[in-house]
C-alpha cells in the first residue's frame, strides 16, 4: 500500500490538494508502461459516453501514450457487486491502476485492501468514496453550490431583490454529489439573512425530469425570483420559456444547450452561470494514476478547479458551440494539466459530421 508522506506533491498546478490538511500518498515507483483500467458504472447518458470517449482519446495523447501499455474500459451498470468484482478482477489480472466512478460511496474497503496488497493504485473520481485511504479526483461540489448561490444572490441584489422565492432543482436523491451541492447552496442563503424561501424539486440531473418538475413548480408557485439547478438545466430553462415565466437568473450545469440559451436570452434577463462537472475529470484521474505509479507523492484528494462561465463570458466556439447538439458537456479542457480535449473534438470525429 501507499505511504503517507509530507507534501508538496508533484505537479501542484494540476494536482492541487483539496485543502491545507490534505495528506499525501506515495506508492513505490513502477516501470512504465502501465496497464490501466477504467471501471465505469452506468453508461446510458451523454456525460458517461463523453467521459469514456475522453478516456480513450486521452490515452492516445502523445504526452502519455508511451506510458500506457493497455487501457481497458468497462461499464458495469448500477450494480455494486459487479463494479467491485470488475475492480477486483483487474487487480487479479495484474493491472497497475484502476480508475473508477463509484456506484456507491461506500463498500470499497475490500477492494482497497486487495489493491494495497497488490500495489495497485485505485483512483475514484466524480462520485468519490467516503474514505481517505485512496487517492481521489474531484471538483469541489460544496464550493460549486456556494458559487451558484453567490452568483444568484449577487444578481438579485443588483436588481434590488433582497428576499423572495427560489427554486432549487436537485439531482439524484441519495447521491453524495447532490447532497454536497445542496448544502453549499443553502449555506450561502442561510448566511445571507434575507428572507429566502427555497422550493425544492427533484430533477434527477436529467433534462426531461427537470423540465417537468420545473413546469409543475411554476404552475403551482407562479413565479420564482431565481432558479438553481444541479443538472438538466437545459430542460429547466425550456420549462421557463414554455410557461412564459419571466427570464430570471439561473444557476446551472455546463450543458451546451444551457449555455446556448443563456447566450441567446441573457439580454432578456436570463443571467446565467454555468459550472460543470466535466467528463474530462477522467483524464486528470488517469494522469494522476500515472504520476502515482511513477513514484511521485500525490495529494490524497485532488481538487480540480471549477470551470465557471457566467453569461457575460460566453463565447461561441470557445466555451459553447451554437451549431452543435445541446447534449454534450462543454467544459473539458484543463490547461494546467495538459488536458486539451474539447467537447466538440470528442463528440464528433470531424466537424462536417455535424450538420
Amino acid at each position, binding site marked *: 500500500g501507499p505511504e503517507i508522506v509530507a507534501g508538496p506533491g508533484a505537479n501542484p498546478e494540476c494536482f492541487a490538494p483539496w485543502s491545507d490538511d490534505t495528506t499525501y500518498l506515495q506508492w513505490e515507483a513502477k516501470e512504465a508502461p502501465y496497464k490501466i483500467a477504467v471501471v465505469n458504472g452506468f453508461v446510458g447518458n451523454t456525460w458517461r459516453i463523453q467521459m469514456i470517449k475522453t478516456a480513450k482519446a486521452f490515452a492516445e495523447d502523445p504526452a502519455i501514450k508511451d506510458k500506457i501499455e493497455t487501457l481497458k474500459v468497462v461499464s458495469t451498470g448500477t*450494480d455494486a457487486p459487479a463494479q467491485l468484482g470488475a475492480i477486483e478482477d483487474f487487480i487479479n489480472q495484474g493491472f497497475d491502476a484502476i480508475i473508477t466512478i463509484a456506484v456507491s460511496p461506500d463498500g470499497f474497503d475490500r477492494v482497497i485492501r486487495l489493491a494495497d496488497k497488490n500495489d495497485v493504485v485505485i483512483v475514484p473520481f466524480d462520485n468519490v468514496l467516503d474514505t481517505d485511504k485512496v487517492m481521489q479526483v474531484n471538483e469541489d461540489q460544496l464550493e460549486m453550490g456556494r458559487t451558484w448561490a453567490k452568483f444568484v444572490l449577487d444578481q438579485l441584489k443588483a436588481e434590488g431583490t433582497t428576499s423572495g422565492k427560489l427554486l432549487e432543482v436537485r439531482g439524484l436523491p*441519495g447521491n453524495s454529489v447532490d447532497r454536497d451541492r445542496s448544502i453549499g447552496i443553502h449555506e450561502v442563503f442561510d448566511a445571507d439573512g434575507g428572507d429566502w424561501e427555497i422550493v425544492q424539486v427533484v430533477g434527477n440531473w436529467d433534462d426531461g425530469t427537470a423540465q417537468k418538475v420545473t413546469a409543475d413548480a411554476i404552475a403551482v408557485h407562479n413565479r420564482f425570483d431565481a432558479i438553481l439547478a444541479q443538472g438538466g438545466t437545459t430542460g429547466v430553462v425550456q420549462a421557463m420559456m414554455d410557461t412564459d415565466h419571466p427570464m430570471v437568473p439561473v444557476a446551472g450545469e455546463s450543458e451546451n444547450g444551457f449555455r446556448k440559451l443563456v447566450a441567446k436570452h441573457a439580454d432578456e434577463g436570463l443571467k446565467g452561470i454555468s459550472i460543470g462537472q466535466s467528463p474530462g475529470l477522467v483524464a486528470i484521474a488517469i494522469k494522476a494514476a500515472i504520476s502515482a505509479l511513477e513514484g511521485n507523492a500525490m495529494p490524497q484528494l485532488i481538487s480540480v478547479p471549477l470551470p465557471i462561465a457566467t453569461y457575460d463570458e460566453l463565447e461561441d466556439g470557445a466555451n459553447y458551440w451554437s451549431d452543435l447538439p445541446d447534449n454534450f458537456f462543454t467544459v473539458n479542457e484543463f490547461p494546467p494539466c495538459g488536458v486539451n480535449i474539447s467537447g466538440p473534438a470528442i463528440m464528433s470525429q470531424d466537424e462536417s459530421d455535424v450538420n
Partner: protein
Amino acid sequence: MHKSTLMRYFSQNLGVVTASLLLIALYVAYNFMHPRGFSTAVAVQNTNEAAAIAFVAMAQTLPVLLGGLDLSVGAVMTLCNCVASVLVNGTPGEIVFGMLATLATGTAFGALNGCIVVYGRIQPIIATLATGAIAIGLALIVRPKPGGDVDGDLGWALTNSVWDFADTYGLADGGDAWWLQPFVDIPVPFLLVVLVAVCVWLPFKRTVTGRTVYAIGSAEGAAFMSGLPIDRARIAAFTLGGFFAACGGLYLAIQTSSGNADLQQAGAYTLNSIAAVVLGGTSLLGGVGGAIASLIGACILRVISFYFRILDIDPLLQPLIEGIVLLVAVSFGAIRTIRVRNKLDLFR
C-alpha cells in the same frame, strides 16, 4: 417401455442440463483466458460478484414456479441491504441479531406479498409492482443516503476463502488445521449459496408445500381439486422468496459494508433475476424448473460480463454486445419451438 432413469432425467430437465453445460464451458474458457485463471483469487472474486444475484434469482424462482412473477425481489433485497447496513455491527451478539433481523425483514415482506396475492387475490406481477415501490420507500427511510458500517471483520471473513474465514476468527488453528486443508481454497460466498440452496431449497422442494408450489404453477385447478394446501403453498413460496432476497441483501451489505437504497439497482436486480430464471430453464408459465437452475442461470449472466474484462472490446459497444448476447441466449428457447411438430404444443 420405461426409459432409463438417466435418460428420463435428461429429457425432463433439458433446460438445466443445457444451462449447466453452457456455464461450465463459459467458465472454463474464461479461466483459460484469464492471466491468473484457475486460482483461488479469481474464484473468490467471481463468487463474490455472483452471490447476491444468485440469491435474488433463487428468490424469483418461487413466484415463477407458481406461474407468476415477483417484481419486488430487487426492492426487497435493497430494503434488507439497508436494514443490514444499520444493524449488522457491534458485538458478536449484536451482529448475529442484526443478521437475523435482516433475514426476518425480507421473510416478513415476502409473507406480506404472499398474503396480498392470496387474500387480496391480485395477480402477483401487479401486486409486487406495488409492494416493490413500498419496499423501496421503506429502504429510503431506513437509509436516506448510501452508507453504513457493517462489521469489517465479518465482511473480510465472508468474502474470501475458507482459510481467511478461519484466520479472521482464529478457528481451526487460524485455518491451518489439517482437517481443514482440503477446503481452505473454497470461496466462502460459494459455500453460503450452496448452503442455503441445500439446506433450505432442496428440503422445501420435498415437502407437500413445495410440491404444491409446482402443482399450482402447472395446473392450479387440479391442485385445488387434489386437496393440496393452495393458500399455504402460495404464501410459503412468497415468504421463502423473501427469505432468499433477504439473503441477497444481507450478503450485499456484508460485501459492500454499506447499504444503498438505489432504485435503479433494485430494478436491475429484478430484471436480471428474471433473465437468470429463464436462462436456467425454468418456465415462466410455472410448474417446471427450480432454484438450483436459476442459480446456474445467474452465474451464466455474470460469467458473460466477465468476458468484457479480458477481451478487448470497444467500451461503447459493450452494452450493445451484452444486449445481443442476452437476446441470443434466451432465443435458444426457440429451438424447442422449431422442433415442435404439433403446433398445438406451442400454446401451453
